[in-house]
């Protein structure tokens, strides 16, 4: 209803921020071509496109983080040049980055007010800053202390801190680069409430997401980019999710999930009484050959920590049995040697070396395969060729630093890196975070193919649809414990949510 009311007034309101014929080159490589679109007050505009289409680059140009190579930015009808992000901020134009921009060693409140600390005379006004931070976080229904260090909080909490930071600045143009990639749908709803409020206050909002149902739900207008080119701009009400996907990918999209696999072999992995201090207690589960096991739960339910404990990335206790043999895993290398690999949810801090090239990143986990005494550079290059084709990694040039790849392409590289170790058991934490819908489909097919080859897969995901669409058996965690397990017909949103929230207790907990 509200969206419709906005629609009517839209025609009248003049754009606040507009791109005219904007192009951008990185060295000789052109990534944006002659882009035109505008943002209007009181309107939520969604910018969508495949990984590497140029969404983040566009947003950075609009907010002064980088310049346009050609074309101009129009603010309130007049051309402007933002020399820096600060210039843009002074005009009330804010960006929330796709990759977090938080100082790890500072507290939440220090981050929220970083660079614009409130002062009382010469001294910092700590109390006001703390109270304001607390209020902002409360608005976002985030239960994290303003005094917690960033390094201690979870990825979705970091996202909420980023959002509070932007909200604290009373922007009139708010640009958000995949703000919901790290959030569950419930958490995203909380964010959207704030978006609705800001829209009603007349803020112009530009946002991007690979979750098209979300775009449909929140956006008034949609602009689609493909390979750096403008494809269309249209009212969201005129586009179905399928239309958006087709425009992004440039071809018809079929079913997102392949048909479910129901058959599974013998038990390969048995985990009993696994405990990770402070996070997980008494977790037990089994995994079968050729099976896709889903793990659901709210953020903070200990899913990630349990798996990190299992693969030796965190201190943990408990017994692990692999193919009937007891297995001791003291570090990630022990797990890798046993054929168990873990793909982290935090690709920036734990997954990839951002200042190194694709080749060094790709082979790091499986480096022993490439070296006797010396590293076989040719074999590495061949592996990179293969990974680029198999995972459809789109890089502007071959020796690009991984930090300069688009977020989704980083994710694909991380997946390729993990698979290069040729594991039997693959644990994937948020497999499609920040990945476009076309690639998502490819990754789901890939996971199925692996299972078909007799590998076992554990998928942790905050996207309910993903767990439900992929897994035939789902373990639900709540508050650091296994809340229950569902399989077959019971794998549906209702049952899983109830378990995750603690409304029902696990019925078929025992396997």
């Amino acid at each position: 209803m509200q969206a419709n009311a906005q629609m009517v007034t839209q025609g009248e309101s003049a754009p606040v921020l507009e791109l005219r014929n904007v192009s951008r080159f990185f060295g000789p490589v052109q990534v944006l071509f002659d882009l035109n679109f505008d943002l209007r007050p009181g309107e939520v505009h969604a910018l969508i496109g495949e990984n590497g289409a140029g969404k983040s680059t566009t947003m950075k140009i609009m907010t002064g983080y980088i310049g346009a190579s050609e074309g101009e930015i129009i603010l309130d009808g007049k051309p402007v040049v933002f020399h820096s992000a600060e210039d843009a901020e002074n005009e009330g134009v804010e960006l929330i980055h796709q990759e977090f921009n938080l100082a790890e060693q500072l507290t939440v409140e220090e981050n929220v007010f970083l660079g614009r600390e409130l002062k009382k005379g010469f001294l910092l006004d700590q109390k006001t800053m703390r109270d304001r931070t607390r209020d902002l976080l409360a608005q976002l229904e985030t239960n994290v202390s303003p005094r917690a260090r960033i390094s201690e909080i979870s990825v979705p909490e970091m996202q909420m801190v980023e959002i509070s930071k932007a909200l604290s600045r009373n922007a009139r143009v708010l640009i958000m680069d995949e703000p919901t990639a790290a959030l569950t749908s419930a958490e995203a709803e909380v964010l959207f409430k704030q978006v609705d409020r800001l829209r009603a206050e007349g803020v112009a909002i530009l946002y991007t997401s690979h979750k098209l149902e979300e775009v449909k739900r929140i956006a008034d207008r949609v602009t689609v980019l493909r390979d750096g080119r403008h494809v269309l701009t249209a009212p969201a009400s005129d586009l179905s999710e399928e239309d958006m996907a087709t425009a992004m990918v440039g071809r018809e999209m079929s079913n997102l999930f392949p048909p479910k696999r129901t058959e599974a072999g013998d038990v390969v992995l048995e985990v009993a009484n696994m405990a990770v201090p402070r996070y997980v207690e008494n977790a037990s589960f089994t995994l079968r050959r050729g099976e896709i096991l889903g793990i659901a739960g709210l953020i903070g339910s200990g899913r990630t920590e349990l798996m990190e404990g299992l693969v030796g990335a965190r201190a943990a206790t408990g017994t692990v049995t692999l193919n009937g043999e007891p297995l001791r895993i003291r570090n990630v290398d022990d797990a890798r040697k046993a054929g168990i690999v873990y793909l982290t949810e935090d690709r920036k801090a734990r997954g990839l070396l951002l200042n190194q090239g694709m080749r060094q990143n790709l082979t790091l986990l499986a480096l022993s395969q490439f070296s006797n005494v010396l590293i076989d550079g040719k074999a590495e290059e061949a592996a990179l060729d293969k990974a680029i084709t198999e995972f459809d990694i789109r890089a502007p040039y071959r020796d690009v630093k991984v930090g300069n790849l688009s977020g989704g392409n980083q994710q694909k590289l991380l997946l390729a890196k993990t698979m290069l170790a040729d594991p039997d058991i693959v644990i994937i934490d948020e497999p499609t975070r920040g990945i476009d819908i076309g690639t998502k489909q490819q990754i789901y097919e890939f996971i199925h193919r692996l299972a078909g080859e007799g590998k076992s897969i554990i998928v942790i995901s905050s996207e309910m649809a993903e767990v439900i669409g992929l897994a035939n058996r789902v373990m639900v965690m709540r508050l650091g414990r296994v809340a229950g397990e569902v399989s077959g017909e019971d794998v549906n949103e209702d049952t899983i949510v109830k378990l995750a929230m603690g409304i029902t207790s696990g019925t078929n907990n025992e396997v």
Partner: protein
Amino acid sequence: MKFDLKVWGPIIALIVLCVAGAFMNENFLSAANITNVLSRSAFIGIIAVGMTFVITTGGLDLSVGSMAAFIAGVMILIMNYLIPSMGVTVGVVLIGMAAALALGFVAGLLNGLLITKMRIEAFIVTLGGLGIFRSLVTWLADGGTISLDFDMRTFYRPVYYDGILGISWPIIVFAIVAILGEIAMRYTAYGRHCAAIGSNEQVARYSAVHVDRVRTATYVILGVLVGVATIMYVPRLGSASSSTGVLWELEAIAAVIIGGTTLQGGFGRVWGTVIGVLILSLIGNLLNLTDYVSPYLNGAIQGVIIILAVVLQREKRASR
């Protein structure tokens, strides 16, 4: 390949230095002078190769100069002690050398374990080591000088002054260490792991790299190389005192940085370090040979070069 200042910078600087030097003094490029400069720079060079691994892994070692003095002192004391029973023989020299290598190994291992297992900052641990080793050698020398037995000195001298085909031993050893170092850094899993840890320790850990082991090994390698350098150094003067090896740590670190290795870690190149060593020693030599600038300003010029090198090699800001 487009021109990359980060790659060519140190090489160009070295060439410019050689050409300028040749104009200023005709002896500068003579075989005798070059051999002399290279032999003298070999100690720092050998240590700097080890330092390259430490810095690439995101660490630092300030203790190497004092460690060299301490090892030299102990090595001389052991040899002097053995001469009465074993005489001036190859055996005594070999035992002395083995002791030097073993001491370097143990000192490096201690540094490494304190840093990785006790989780103390590398800066702190090795700053402590700098003080401790320096004070130990002063104490061993009773405030004076520890001198090698006179006959032994004559016997051991050739290790510094002789060589094959007119190339002295220190130069040969430096070259071998540098070549092995370059290969290890560039073409082995170990070198890759060092760079990975220096870039992001967490990522390395999640990628099945044995972070503590690799990091400790960098300090052990450096310690052993300090031992090697000492073996070449003792026959030169035949003595050790509290002023032996003073500021070597800074010269070694400077050479590494001039060579293009990043101080925060994540990227290292051994050949760059070799060039860094050459640049630093040729400048000192040139100031001694010519009288345009007082040799007392050597330190100032080196300082300017270090800062300049870092400025020139700084990552170009992501182009706006």
